[in-house]
Structures are given as structure tokens and as C-alpha cells.
């Protein structure tokens, strides 16, 4: 009865104020994107990713991620230093994230002193073999989907996002629950072309870091593969005043220790 009532309320609201709702949902999505990927102007975190496959075997990825927003059109620069596993230790990775076009990516292989340019049109591919896609780490362009507010649940906005270019992604839509207070997405469910749920991403722990609500533990689960990845963020810091020059070939070769070494 209560559910029917709330559906009626939602339908009535949608019908009566469709334009207002559309503007509101885009605003929520923008705020969620800001809260998740653009806290402060820059930051660092040590990230440990544990991948567990369907047989319970685990692999670990360890890295330090630096981020700086350029302040132009949502562009950001990411610097990744790999600590783990042993065969990739010391490799560095640079991403210039562009909104609306492909990112620019470079990988540095110290054993060969080689700076490789990485073709990067598929943002849905797995990030370093985990259950997270590249977009899950650095954000998905909010303009790439049409968003609908489905309602409010337990203090969270429930939003359905449908890709404008369905051929570019493996999902047909995803549903996100965004906290009404801090705008941090707490859960996302991805549905395939048959409408079956195949992947979830959950924020398992959110902490206040220097006044910024921050996801410090999140989990991606792939129901088809039977595998999951838990990502833990430690030593998170914001407002470091990082020099943008760090996000360049020079520092691929010479990692900036002041931001990378565990404090």
C-alpha cells in the first residue's frame, strides 16, 4: 500500500513537474560526479585492490594515485605509480582525462626506458585486470547518459542512467543510489542488454578526510565471472598543491617521491 502510494506520488511529481525533475536529476548527477571524482583540486591515495576470482584465488594490485584538476572543462590529470605485483613494480602511468574525447595515456616501462603511448578508446575495459573499469576509477562523463530520477530510498536518490550511444558500452543502463547529504554514490547496479543485473559497485566505507567525504573502501562484483575486487584507499590527502608539471614525461621517468612514498 505504502509502495503504491509512493509510486503515485513519484508519478504525480514527474507528470506535474517533468522539467524541474530533469534539471534536478542532472544537478544531482553533477554533484555526485563532483563528490566522487573532483574533491578539492588535487589529491593522493595509496590504493590496494584485491581481486578474488570464482575459485577464491586472490591477486593484489598496489599503487599510488595522484590527481590534479586542470580547472578546464572537467579535465584532470592522473599519475599512477605501481607498487604491486612484483613484475610491474616501478612502472608509472599517466592519464590526461578529457571529457567528451579520448583520454591521453602514457605508460613508462623502466626496464626499457620506454615511454609508450597507449591507445585508449575503450574506457569500459578492465583497469589493470580488476573488476573495475577505467571509468569506474576516473569517472564517466555525465553527458554520456540520459538520467532519470526514479525516486528516493533510505536518504538516497535513486537514478537510472541510459547511455546515449548504446553501442559504446556493454550495459543497457545502470542505477545509482546517491546519498542525499554528501552526494557520494553508495551503490551502482549495471544491467546488460537483456535487462539482467551483472555487475555492482558498492561504497563499503565512506570517511571524512579533511572535510571531504571520501570512499575509502569499495567493491566491484561481476556476477557473470563470479569474481570481485575490493579497493581500499589509505593515506588519502587533499589540497596538496601538486605542481601540474608532475603529470609529464619527466616524472614518469623520475617518480615524485614526496607524493608516492608511504608516509
Amino acid at each position, binding site marked *: 500500500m505504502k509502495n503504491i502510494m509512493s509510486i503515485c506520488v513519484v508519478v504525480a511529481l514527474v507528470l506535474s513537474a517533468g522539467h524541474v525533475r530533469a534539471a534536478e536529476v542532472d544537478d544531482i548527477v553533477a554533484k555526485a560526479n563532483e563528490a566522487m571524482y573532483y574533491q578539492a583540486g588535487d589529491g593522493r591515495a595509496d590504493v590496494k585492490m584485491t581481486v578474488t576470482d570464482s575459485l577464491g584465488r586472490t591477486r593484489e594490485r598496489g599503487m599510488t594515485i595522484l590527481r590534479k584538476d586542470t580547472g578546464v572543462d572537467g579535465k584532470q590529470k592522473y599519475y599512477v605509480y605501481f607498487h604491486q605485483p612484483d613484475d610491474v613494480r616501478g612502472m608509472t602511468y599517466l592519464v590526461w582525462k578529457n571529457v567528451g574525447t579520448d583520454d591521453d595515456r602514457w605508460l613508462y616501462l623502466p626496464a626499457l626506458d620506454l615511454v609508450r603511448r597507449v591507445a585508449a578508446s575503450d574506457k569500459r*575495459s578492465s583497469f589493470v585486470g580488476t573488476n573495475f573499469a577505467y571509468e569506474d576509477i576516473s569517472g564517466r562523463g555525465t553527458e554520456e547518459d540520459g538520467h532519470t530520477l526514479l525516486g528516493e530510498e533510505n536518504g538516497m536518490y535513486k537514478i537510472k542512467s541510459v547511455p546515449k550511444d548504446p553501442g559504446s558500452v556493454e550495459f543497457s543502463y545502470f542505477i545509482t543510489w546517491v546519498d542525499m547529504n554528501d552526494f557520494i554514490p553508495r551503490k551502482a547496479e549495471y544491467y546488460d542488454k537483456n535487462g539482467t543485473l551483472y555487475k555492482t559497485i558498492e561504497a563499503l566505507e565512506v570517511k571524512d578526510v579533511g572535510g571531504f567525504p571520501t570512499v575509502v573502501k569499495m567493491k566491484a562484483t561481476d556476477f557473470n565471472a563470479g569474481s570481485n575486487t575490493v579497493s581500499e584507499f589509505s593515506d588519502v590527502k587533499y589540497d596538496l598543491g601538486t605542481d601540474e608539471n608532475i603529470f609529464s614525461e619527466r616524472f614518469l621517468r623520475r617518480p615524485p617521491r614526496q607524493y608516492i612514498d608511504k608516509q
Partner: protein
Amino acid sequence: MGNNAGMKNMALAILLSALSVGVANAVDIPELHGFLEEAFAPRFGEDNTAHRQFNMAEGRLQLKTKYYVKGDNILADWQTVLTAKADLVLDMYYGGKVVTDLRELNAVMTPMDIMDLKIGRQVLTWGTGDYLFLNDLFPKDYESFFIGRDDEYLKAPSDALRVMLYPEWFNVDVAIIPFFRPNILPDGQRVSFFDSFQGGIAGRNSHRTLDEPARQFRNFIYAGRIYRNFSSYEAALYYYRGFDPSPRSYKDEAAMELFYERLDAYGASVRGPVMGGIGNAEVSYYYSPQDNAGKIRTVQNSMVKYLVGYEKDMGGDLRISAQYYLEETLDYDEYRKALLPNDYRWDEFRHTITGRITKLLANQTVKLSLFTFFSPSDLDVYTRPSITWNATDSWTLTIGANLPWGKDPWTDFGSDQKNKNVYVRLRYSF
């Protein structure tokens, strides 16, 4: 008594732990990493090398460490990092000979905000080609490449002083290499090759000698690069003053003596996004000062080398790439006129096409790779399939093959046609 002994033990334990903490803090023992690898490459092809059954059978231990200089001294102020990396190889190809291979021993420092220095043994790489090198004239180890060692070993280290400058508008990279190190090429001991003195593919029956430049100040090698980004596009200019790293010129034919002729190279490259992928183009002019008119038949002529390449991410962890490479011999008429009746005659243009397909499977723990070189002008092919399986975070199994074919024995890959092999490498990283 028992109680007393317990007290003593406890005191000892406290003392020891205090000492170990103290020592660890004072010395700050650097981390030691590396891998242990077993590699075997059975072969098919009859030639006159040391073993007909295999190209490679070796155990390898690589150790590497870094040390960050601390304290109140100028090296610490310059944020100096010392790196050492060495391989210890038990080489069963040569009857269990133990070889030490110092890959890196260098210091990296920042004496000024806009300057980094790297001094010592190091690997040097630049340019935009994939397995094709135009402006990168630093030493390569093609023998390792042909027998199936890891790609890391295609690059041989140099002893160099590298000065890297980062002023506002562009970056400068200068390498000064006091002593010439040639490419490590098949020489008939492990891998057979085309020996013009034998008139065919030779193994241990080759008696040629290679004459390296004298270790003198005037033979120092200088290599430079100026580069910068224009938004997503990278542009670079290159310079090299040194020697051809492969012996292509004849010093004394009767004595079967080859040498590494002087070489100056001037080049340029661009790289950046093109049609949803990455495109690159590179050119290099090789000037041969010892035969600048092309009239000396025993010395390599000047050349121009061109490269265009394209790589695309097809989605689903599938990547494809292709390259077109052209070598043009300059002063070709002079070269032809200078030849004697029995000389081999190289084409004026040598074309090479390469293709690479890479597919990752099973959460990127399995990598399938196929790289192929094909020269429509030389009519030779070299294909390198491989499969790499990261069984765990520590264990990696690689199986691959080196399959060169050629119509004629004197072309790049035709000369290597007796060295078809498959290889297996099992590596434990730590």
C-alpha cells in the same frame, strides 16, 4: 636459577629488538627485488652453430635495488636515487658458464629545478617505432631477441651521462656515451647469420672480425633530443653523432674485417591521437661521413629512413597496430657504379610492413600476442607469436616462437631463417 635465565633471555630479547630497530633506522636497508627465471628454446633448422637442438637453455637471477640518499649532503639535496640491477645467468648453451650482466648502476639527481642528471650504466630509449628504431641508435641485443629472451633484453645498456633539461617551452635530453657499444648481433656461435665472406649462412665457420672504434675522446658518442607536447600531440627532434651500431662497412676484405662506420643522424617524430587510435610518424637522415658521395663500395652510403604507424584499441582488450617502414639508400647510382661484378647489390628502397595483434583474456591474466615483420622488397618474413600467462601475482609462464623466413639468405630475416625456435620461460618475481 630458571627465573634468572628467563630474565636474562628477556633482557637479551629486548636488547636485540632495540638493536635491530636501531640498525634498521640507521642503515635503512633498501628493498631487494627481482626474479628467478628458467628459459629453454628448442630449435628446428640445420646450421653450424654450437647446438642443433636448442638456441637457449639458461637460468637467470635478476636482482635490483634502489637507494635514496639521505642526510645533510649535496646528494641528498639533489634527491639522488641510486639504482643497481644485475643478472646472474647460468648459461647451459655454453656448457654451464656463469655470466654476470650488470644492467644498471646509476645515479639520478636533480641539481636544479629544471634539470635532471642520470650518470652511469643505464638503458636509453627514444623514438616512436615498435621494434623498429630510426633515431634510437642506442645498442640493441638482437641475439636475445631472436632466441626468445624477454623484451627487456632487446635493449643493451650504455655507460652514459644523461642531461635532461626542462625549461618552460620544451624539453632537452642529451646523452654522452664515452665508449661505443655495438649491437649484439648473430655471430654464428648461437645464432647463424649471413656472412658475405662465406657467401651464405654461416655459423662457427665464420672467420670475420669486427673492428670497433678506438676508445678515444674523439670517438665519444653524442645523442640529443628536443621534445614537447602540443596538447595531445608529441613532437621531437633528434640528433646523433657516433657510429653505426651494426657493422656494415668493410675495412679489409682480404682479412675479412668489418667495421662500424661513422654515422650522423638527424631526425624528427610526431605522435598523437588519430581517428580513435594513436598515430606516429618518424623520419631520420643517416649521413655517412666516410662515404659522403656514396662512391666507396666498401662503406655504407647515406640513407633516409621513414616510418608511419597506427595503433587502435578495438575494445574487449584487443589491440591492433601496423607500421610501414621505408629505407632509402642515397647516392644509389654512385653506389651501383662502384660495385664490382661479384658484389651483392642492395636495393635502393627497402620496404617493411609490421603488424601486431594483442589480446588479453581471463581478467588480463593471459596475453596473446602476434608480431610480424614482412618486407615485400626483400621477400622475407619474421613472425613472433607468444602467449603469456600470469598464473599468480608471482609466477609467469611465457611460450612463444621466433619464425623467420626468407627467399634469399642475405636479407635481414632471410639471414636468420635457420634459427626457427620455440621458447618457454618460467619466471618467479619477488
